Structures are given as structure tokens and as C-alpha cells.
């Protein structure tokens, strides 16, 4: 299975501030009553957006200035909580192609990489600086470069970090593990036969 080599993500940015934005926030459980991931995009941050509206405010994801943005910025421990792949799926289907945060919860991180959606880490200072730049010029195009490990906006570069294995997986087009795993099936059977609780199967 040849997958796209993801070396760069370009697009406009949107900043959703907050730490510990959990998976219930990213997609409330009541929208997970589905048997496909289709159509989940509209439910991304559903309650937060509805709240903002009710209070006469506009959530960044509904702010027309940021419509079509594909790079999402946020705080620390992004995606904590449940293992639901519905969360990264909803963001991806909303149009997000990369997430930049201070840190990520582990399962969310893995789920996102498997979709080919890079999750990269930047310092909170830099995230705030970029957020200001986006705010003052929402049309600015950002370039996330996974090979150079930097984010460029206007004539500025910001350093970023990403786990080596995830970076490699993305840039070599091996972000979905299934092909590699399938190649090892003979070894899987051999290994399983050594385990009493599996050998009986």
C-alpha cells in the first residue's frame, strides 16, 4: 500500500486555546452513535461552538476569518481522555491536516498519525506568537515542514519537535502500520504458537 509521503502541510491556521482539551470536547460522545466515520466533521468541538454561539461569541472554528484553515493550534495535553478515533477523524473531516500543540495525549497522538495527520509540538511562547500572527492576518499561509522541523509564516521560522518515529513514518509514507504488520504474519503465527494461552487457538 503506497501512502502519500507527508513532508509538508501548508495552509491557513486557526488557534483553539486551552489546555487538556479532551476527546469529549473534541467530539461529544452522543455524536459517536454511528457505524462509519463519515459526516463526523460537523461535530468537531460541537458543544464548545454551540456555547460560544449561545453567549453571542464566535468559536474560532466558526469564525469566518478562519474558514478553511487546516492547521490547528492549541495548548497542552491535547486530546486527553478516550481512545476514540472519532476525535481525530472529526478534526480531519472538518478539514484539519495538522495539529500543533504544547503536548499531546498518547492515544490521540497515535490515532492521528495513523490518519496521516501530523501532531507536532511547539513551545507555548511560539504558539502564542503564531496565534497573534494568525489573528492579525488570518489569510497568512503557514508551512509546516516535517523534514526541516519548522513552521514558517511570513518570513519567520519557528522550531518544532515531533517524535522521531512519527516523523519518519509520515515523511516516508508509512504512517499507517497495516502493510508492515501484514508482512510479519508468518512470524506472528510462530510467536503465537509459543504462548500457551494462544496456542490452543
Amino acid at each position, binding site marked *: 500500500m503506497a501512502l502519500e509521503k507527508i513532508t509538508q502541510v501548508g495552509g491557513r491556521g486557526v488557534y483553539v*486555546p*486551552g*489546555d*487538556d482539551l*479532551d476527546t*469529549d*470536547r473534541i467530539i*461529544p*460522545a*452522543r455524536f*459517536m*452513535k*454511528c*457505524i*462509519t*466515520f463519515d459526516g463526523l466533521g460537523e461535530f468537531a468541538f460541537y*458543544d464548545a461552538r454551540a*456555547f460560544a454561539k449561545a453567549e453571542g461569541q464566535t468559536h474560532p472554528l466558526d469564525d469566518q476569518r478562519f474558514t478553511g484553515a487546516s492547521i490547528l493550534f492549541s495548548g*497542552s*495535553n491535547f486530546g*486527553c*481522555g*478516550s*481512545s*476514540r*478515533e*472519532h476525535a*481525530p477523524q472529526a478534526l480531519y473531516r472538518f478539514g484539519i491536516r495538522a495539529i500543533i500543540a504544547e*503536548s499531546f*495525549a*498518547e*492515544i490521540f497522538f*497515535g*490515532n492521528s498519525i*495513523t*490518519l496521516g495527520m501530523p501532531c507536532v509540538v511547539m513551545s507555548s511562547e511560539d504558539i502564542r506568537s503564531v496565534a497573534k500572527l494568525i489573528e492579525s492576518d488570518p489569510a497568512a499561509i503557514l508551512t509546516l515542514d516535517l523534514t526541516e522541523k519548522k513552521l514558517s509564516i511570513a518570513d519567520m521560522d519557528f522550531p518544532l519537535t515531533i517524535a*522521531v*518515529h512519527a516523523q*519518519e*513514518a509520515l515523511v*516516508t509514507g*508509512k504512517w*499507517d*502500520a*497495516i502493510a*508492515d*504488520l*501484514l508482512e*510479519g*504474519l508468518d*512470524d*506472528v503465527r510462530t*510467536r*503465537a504458537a*509459543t*504462548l*500457551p*494461552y*494462544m496456542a490452543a*487457538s
Partner: protein
Amino acid sequence: MSQTLLDKVWATHTVRTLPNGATQLLIGTHLIHEVTSPQAFGMLRDLNLKVLYPSRTFATVDHIVPTDERAEPFSDDLADAMIKALRSNCAENGITFFDLPTGKQGIVHIVGPEQGITQPGTTIACGDSHTSTHGAFGAIAFGIGTSQVRDVLATQTMAIHKPKVRRISVHGKLNPGVYAKDVILHIIRKLGVNGGLGYAYEYGGSTFDAFTQEERMTVCNMSIEGGARVGYVNPDETTFEYLKGRPYSPKGADWDAAVIRWKATASDADAHYDDAVTFDAADIAPTVTWGINPGQAIFINENVPFPSEVPEKDRATAEEAIAHMLLKPGAPIKGTKVDVAFLGSCTNGRLSDLQEVARYMKGRKVKSGVKAIVVPGSQGVASVAESMGLAEIFREAGFEWRGAGCSMCLGMNPDKLVGEQLCASSSNRNFKGRQGSPTGRTVLMSPLMVAAAAVSGEISDAREVFDIR
């Protein structure tokens, strides 16, 4: 020697190292449920792949099942489509399904241990972050996403990097009225909701040695709330005693051989840990959350913190929490009015939880105006509890006695908070909107504290309400 249980299980389950350095890890036992599996079966069909070891996957239905009117078709079409999809996926692929009519249905993390499927020294995966529960048996158990459910179905393996291990020791005897739930809430409060990132938590020490298997499950269940994807306790006689005679436990000579193997999987006395933390059981009091993540917790006699008191990096979240919870900083949490009392979930929906609460509820009444529900974690728990007369005690006290499922732990079934209702809950997550109402408020606590809240109509100290000394 000098290996942890994690090292040993990793070694016996490593298939090979993948080109990117991740381990292709054999997943001996795979548990599935209706929410995170249908898309995975869809992916298998798209890729024209088959389930490699159908006999190593077990299914149940828990998140979307109604707990009162359970006749099918469910009134919610979407929920009905989900149970039907699971049923047909299991039938097509030869997977055992603990379906509603089997009498074995329940929350996936309660059913696995109950059936004896969860065993020491094994690897377990499930498309659910509370899979860490199974670590209570000395298994290495991971919550996984749907693409990984697909991977495990098709290859019985997944690609994963080996975590570091943090040893968390708790020593001594818990004070009366303090429970396993308080221990884990305290650990998360102290180490933070992302303190466990990159780590597996190994729980031990004399407090854990004395814990029952079910208490160990309560702690391991919430490892993920502390950021640790995996949590485990080394298997011992308590573990073997629990497993003996269960439907899927080894029998006869196989049992004896298994126990010898299981003992050998425990961490060596001189095992190397990447980090170690120690707590004193005597320092822990009944704990409740005041905020919107499980780390925002205080002892029942403490006051709701001022956001200005919390470390700077947690301040914004604290402010958001106070606003959402409609609590007053600096005021006691005790006395906060409660609308709903929920006793259940994979954290605290097991028989011992219900027994402990029933013991104190006998002859007591739920305060009028409080909606109180008990939701056994499985049909197995329900039937034993009913035969022991517990259901009767709960009903007489004014609790609703429901059918097994996730219920009010999350808003995917008819059991939901309404508006700004505040729920005293024995579950594991107090995220905004978690219990089905975007403005609903969740206060996490031990089962007995839930009972105390139900009786008094406000957040209370169970030791005072039930005169525990």
C-alpha cells in the same frame, strides 16, 4: 533477572521490530464493543482482509444499551444499528459475542475479568481507553483507536513503542471510609493528568498487596486519567484465587502450569524502574473532584481552590472549571447540592462496590428530589447481586435498579444529565459534557460517597453520614 513484568511480557509477545523502530507486538486477547469496532470491520472489508484469530477476540455491547427498557429494536435507531452491526460482524467472522440474551453481557472491562479471559502475563487490547483495567491481573492492556482495532483483527498485532515504567508504591492501611477510588484520585491529583505520559504505571506496596482483585481493577482503570496508557499490578495469590474456576480460566493440569508461569511474570525484586513514587495510605482521605478533569480533586474537607492558588500552568483550566461547575472558590465542596447519584461504570460497577454500599444503605433512604440509579457493570454482577438481595436493598432505599451497561458514565444511551444537573458519580471522567448534557456537572468519588450524597442530597463525607470511624 531484574526485569519488570512489562519487560517480560514485552519479550514474550514481540513478533519483530518494525522498520520505524516500533515493536510489532502480539496481542493475545482482543476485546471489542459496538462503538469503536464497526468502522474497523468496514476497513477490513475495504482491504479485503480476514480476522486472523477469531477465537482470540471477544465482543460485548455496553456503551449504547439502554439500562431500563432493553427490548429490541431500541427506540434509538442509531443505537439499534450499532448493536445489529456488532452482531452481524461477530457472526460473519466467528467471534464470540456476549450479547444481551446470553446473560454474560456487560461493560467490556468487567466482562473480561469475570469470564476469566483476562489473565496474567498476557497482552490485551480494546478500542477503549479504560482497557488499563485489565492490568490489575498483571496483563499489559492497551486502549487503542479504531485503525488499531483493524490491525489487531487482521494481524493479531499492533505497532507500538515500549513505554517506560514508573513504580507507584502505596504503603500502609487505608483509614476507614477510604477506598481504592480515593487512592487513584489522589495519585492523579498528585502526579497530574498528563504525568503518566509515556509511562506504564506499576502499582504495588502493602496497600495493593492487601487489596482485593476488584479494588486493584478500580485503580488500574483510571491509569489513563493520569496519562498512563497502561497500569498494572503484579499477579499474586489474590489474582489466582479470583481467576480459579472462571469459564475461560485454565483447568486441571493446565491451571497448575499456568499459575507457575503467572508467578514468574511478576516483576523481579531488583527490577529496574525508570521512575518511582511512594505514597502513604494513611495520608489519603475521601476524595472528590471539583473541576473538569480527574486531577482537579480535593479531600472532602478541603475547600474549592481559588484559581490563583493553583500552579500557573493549570490556572486557565481551573478558571474554566470553576465557571463550568458553578462552584465558589474558597468555599467547602461539602454541602454542594446534588441532583443525581450514579453508582456504576467500569471503575466501580462491580459486585464488591454494590455490596459495600448496600451494607450502609440498609434502612436508609435516598433524599427526595435526588435521582439515584445503580447500574451493575454486567449481567453477571446483576444476577449475583439480585440473588444476594442487594437489588432489594437498593430499591427499598429509593435507588433505581437498572440493567447492565455504561449508562450515565457517558452520554451515549438514554441515561443522561439534564441541563446543569450535578451528579455524584462513581465513574471515571468529569469532562465537560461527559454525562450527556453540555452543561451537566460531574463530581467523581467513591461508591460510598455517592451513597452519602444520595442520602443527604448534597456532597457529604460518607464517614459522617454513615457513622464510620
